[in-house]
């Protein structure tokens, strides 16, 4: 009854092509953004910021990036961790060597460097497909991980191999408390997510989806595979690179290449599969799920009042994590975004389902 588009007439082409054509959706999104900016800082504590909100937001950006490549363009990639590392180290080096650079520019530079590397490692996709490509992207992952561990210039000849960032400042305001970091990350996320949403609705997104559904057919109707696949790699790596820089600068503060190992790639892949392939909303839902699940599993023994050694807990965490992933895939292979769509469909007819 509440969620119904009846009576919302579209009188212009602009209205017809709006990003959220249904008024309820539009208001919901506005309300959500306003809530996140204004209401959350009123009650959120240190733990909620650093362990939940900031990781979820940053990893959502990475998930959006991978979703563009895998969900929209159909190119399975296991190299996200490596591209995040490119972003993080590019940002570190720019901030180190040109300390006066605006922090936003630093993050954009991180994105652009990741983009270049992404295009380079995307080139094989023109010839290799499916799981062969997935394994080929692992080459990017391992090569990049190795490069940042071994090439001393990247880490500014730090003897331990780990790098740390200094003070982060934006227009004279130091971004140091969790609350400020949260607002900054949130603003970045909103801008990038809206950008991605618009990109996939437009010409480019159509091109990618045609490529995903059947590349030969897409080629025949005049979509250049080189253009489509490499642009997907470029945009995707840009997002993942920015996410990597944010992760390094605002979540970790100091890091080693190990922070961006192959498990990170799998983590981001889990997010888009659980969240829903080919859905921007799904990227957020998946990121929340994958960040919250281990926290929940970690707390579970305490709540149940069972005393266990940390090793046992971590093994059981592994087991439960694997089992929940499998259960989830069996129950809803199309991810949380599909559940959301089904709920909306039901809501439209409620309370008269026929």
């Amino acid at each position, binding site marked *: 009854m509440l969620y119904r588009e009846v009576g919302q007439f579209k009188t212009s082409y602009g209205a017809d092509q709006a990003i959220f054509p249904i008024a309820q959706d539009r208001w919901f999104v506005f309300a959500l953004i306003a809530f996140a900016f204004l209401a959350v800082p009123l009650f959120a504590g240190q733990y909620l910021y650093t362990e939940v909100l900031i990781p979820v937001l940053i990893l959502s950006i990475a998930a959006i990036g991978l979703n563009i490549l895998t969900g929209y363009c159909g190119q399975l990639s296991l190299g996200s961790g490596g591209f995040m590392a490119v972003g993080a180290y590019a940002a570190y080096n720019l901030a180190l060597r040109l300390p006066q650079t605006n922090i936003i520019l630093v993050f954009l530079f991180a994105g652009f460097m990741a983009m270049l590397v992404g295009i380079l490692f995307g080139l*094989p996709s023109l010839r290799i497909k499916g799981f062969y490509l997935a394994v080929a992207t692992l080459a990017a992952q391992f090569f990049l*991980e190795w490069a940042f561990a*071994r090439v001393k210039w990247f880490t500014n000849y730090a003897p331990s191999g780990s790098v740390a960032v200094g003070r982060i400042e934006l227009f004279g305001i130091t971004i140091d408390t969790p609350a400020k970091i949260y607002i900054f990350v949130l603003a970045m996320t909103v801008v990038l997510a809206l950008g991605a949403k618009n990109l996939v609705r437009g010409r480019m997104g159509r091109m990618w989806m045609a490529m995903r559904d059947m590349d030969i057919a897409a080629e025949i109707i005049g979509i250049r595979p080189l253009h489509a696949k490499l642009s997907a790699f470029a945009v995707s790596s840009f997002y993942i690179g920015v996410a990597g820089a944010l992760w390094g600068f605002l979540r970790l503060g100091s890091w080693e290449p190990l922070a961006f190992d192959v498990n990170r790639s799998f983590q981001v892949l889990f997010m888009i599969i659980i969240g829903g392939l080919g859905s921007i909303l799904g990227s957020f839902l998946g990121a929340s799920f994958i960040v919250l699940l281990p926290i929940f599993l970690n707390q579970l023994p305490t709540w149940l009042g069972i005393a266990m050694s940390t090793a046992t807990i971590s*093994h059981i965490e592994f087991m439960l994590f694997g089992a929940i992933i499998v259960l989830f895939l069996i129950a809803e292979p199309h991810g949380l975004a599909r559940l959301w769509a089904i709920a909306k469909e039901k809501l439209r007819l409620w309370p008269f389902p026929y």
Partner: protein
Amino acid sequence: MLGPVLETLIGGLMTGVLYSLVALGFVLIFKASGVFNFAQGAMVLFAALSFARLSEAMPLVLAFALSVLIMIALAYAIEFLVLRRLVNQEGIILFMATLGIAYFLEGFGQSIWGSDIYKIGLGLPTNPIFILESVFPGGLLIDPAELIAAIICAVMVLVLAVFFQVTRIGRALRAVADDHQAAQSVGIPLNHIWLMVWAVSGLVALVAGMMWGAKLGVQFSLSLIALKALPVLILGGFTSIPGAIVGGLIIGAGEKLAEVLLAPVLIRTFDLAGGGIENWFAYVLALVFLLVRPQGLFGERIIERV
């Protein structure tokens, strides 16, 4: 100069055989069910852990037999609980499910068998053998344990080849690999075939786990050798058993030679903090091969139609 290089080459080939052994498990499952089984590494770990802990309490033969039973039970559980419920899903969903299985097995194996480093004593000879002493000064060093592993691997490949070519089940497996629906329509029960294939690759994982375990000790990192088997797979082709063997040999030899010959050059040129290019060299090597032959060396030719 030639002597040490040859020695490295032989060592690399022996390691390559062990990679092939892991890759073989992947190929069997991919061929028969189209599932890209990422859990193969976890299965190797699980099998090796079971065998190592059981062999502490009983004779080797008994432990081996029990481990075989465990791997068959595991195959049954995976088929019954997971695969059967994911029939007709896309490849990527099945791949993610095997990732989930991998996490589960890693946690499960270590909770029931413990997470220390265990030794597998197969009673293999450990004294190095020297060959060709007349050709090279000092001869070439060969580790007999690796030699035995290579022989076992060769025997396994032969047995599998005969199994696939001659037996009734083998023929059914090949039929399923060719075309699921056609196989089903002539009365081949898919579920049985999948169970069989997972059990066989469980056995392959057990043998691989025993060999790797004897070489490195049984520990968590054993599940990571799956990552080493992946370039072998794409190099040889996902669907080819000979591909897994040849790919393993090329990768094994290639990465050892690269570490010896290429790494010092790279370190000198780019002022690196140490070599360790083994980790990515295999992948890049496989990638270069793929650019020439996108289906791998022996993979089925990909024919695409609209």
